[in-house]
């Protein structure tokens, strides 16, 4: 069914207020929208890696999750949910369960790109009927903004500080969406909370209701780690997409579709400038850093267009 903001609004909220995420955090916005894509009659078993989302949403004795929720450890959200899904298959065969249950595993970029990559890869390869969602805020925010392999090049983090000799994180970001696309899954996408949430909602719906393993990589800005004012969340999301720093695309059974091609691709500088973590890039003499980032964004964007047959 095509997305309609007003119709979607009537669906039940499945992630309540009363959680302890920071004011203005991008992650709960993403979570709410993904859960909204569930059919109201379906139950969900949701897992989360240790991280901001988990420690803030299930702090004893309060849970923000209206569905069943399990947290195990940092690196095993995918394996944990895969076990729950296997139990579901077995118990369903015995006829002891009614209705449909969907399985969703959440992890931040630390729990997904880094420490949880093996668990994710294994669960996806085994073909469990589940959705893995990475809410990517580009660093280990829960422990205090340490660099991850998802941190953009030159970003200033607490373990890749912009110092006198080393100007922030020296390495380019890992392209996890591509890594997952190469697992040849039925559904892989990259998305963000944009505008009226159409892209995020529709992709969530596809991921949830495609049989088999699905992977979603969703941008989730962090006002504290990225250093911008909380009201700017949706502007930051928009800039990430309009500059092609974070392209919106999906890979369905190996077929690439770029969901949004900006008419006026903005310079990545516009995205960087909005965030304090890139402040040092704008000092005189550091122009090369912005140029390098722009070159990397362009290279990846062109490659993506090529994969989608748009180049």
């Amino acid at each position: 069914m095509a997305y309609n903001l007003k119709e979607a609004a009537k669906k039940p909220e499945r992630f309540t207020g009363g959680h302890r995420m920071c004011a203005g955090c991008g992650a709960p916005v993403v979570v709410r929208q993904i859960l909204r894509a569930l059919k109201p009659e379906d139950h969900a078993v949701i897992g989360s890696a240790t991280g901001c989302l988990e420690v803030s949403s299930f702090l004893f004795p309060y849970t923000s999750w209206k569905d069943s929720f399990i947290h195990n450890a940092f690196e095993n959200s995918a394996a944990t949910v895969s076990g729950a899904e296997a139990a579901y298959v077995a118990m369903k065969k015995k006829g002891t369960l009614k209705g449909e249950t969907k399985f969703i595993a959440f992890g931040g970029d630390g729990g997904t790109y880094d420490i949880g990559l093996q668990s994710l890869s294994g669960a996806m390869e085994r073909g469990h009927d589940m959705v893995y969602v990475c809410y990517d805020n580009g660093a280990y925010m829960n422990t205090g903004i340490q660099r991850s392999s998802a941190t953009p090049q030159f970003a200033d983090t607490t373990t890749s500080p912009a110092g006198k000799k080393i100007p922030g994180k020296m390495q380019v970001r890992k392209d996890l969406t591509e890594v997952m696309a190469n697992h040849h899954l039925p559904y892989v996408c990259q998305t963000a909370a944009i505008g009226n949430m159409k892209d995020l909602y529709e992709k969530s719906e596809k991921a949830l209701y495609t049989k088999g393993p699905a992977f979603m990589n969703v941008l989730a800005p962090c006002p504290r780690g990225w250093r911008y004012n909380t009201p700017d969340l949706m502007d930051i999301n928009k800039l990430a997409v309009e500059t092609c720093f974070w392209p919106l695309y999906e890979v369905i059974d190996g077929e690439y579709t770029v969901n949004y091609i900006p008419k006026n691709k903005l310079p990545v500088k516009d995205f960087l400038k909005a965030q304090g973590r890139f402040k040092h890039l704008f000092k005189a003499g550091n122009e090369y850093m912005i140029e390098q980032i722009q070159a990397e964004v362009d290279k990846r964007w062109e490659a993506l267009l090529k994969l989608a047959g748009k180049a």
Partner: protein
Amino acid sequence: MSNNAAEKTKIQAGSCTWKEISEGGMIPYAGNAELFKTGDWRSMKPIWLQEKCKQCLLCYPVCPDTSILVDENGKRIEFDYDHCKGCGVCVKVCPFKAIDFVEEGK
């Protein structure tokens, strides 16, 4: 959530003994975080200017705290100030300037 669940959550949140506490920290009251108020985190407060609001609904999904509620007719209603942390994301996305943003307590 039933009153019973709310009551039991209160017991768990308080000074319950090890004999009363739930096994392994399991909580059988899904969504009971609603009982936990985060409204006092606010230093800025969004004010809904009903007369300017066109009910475009762009504000409800951007709220990280599920604090812009939509009624059964699909209309947004007053803020849930029990949970709103005053981040101002809704203020910025409103195309009609129908949400004011003021200092808390003023």
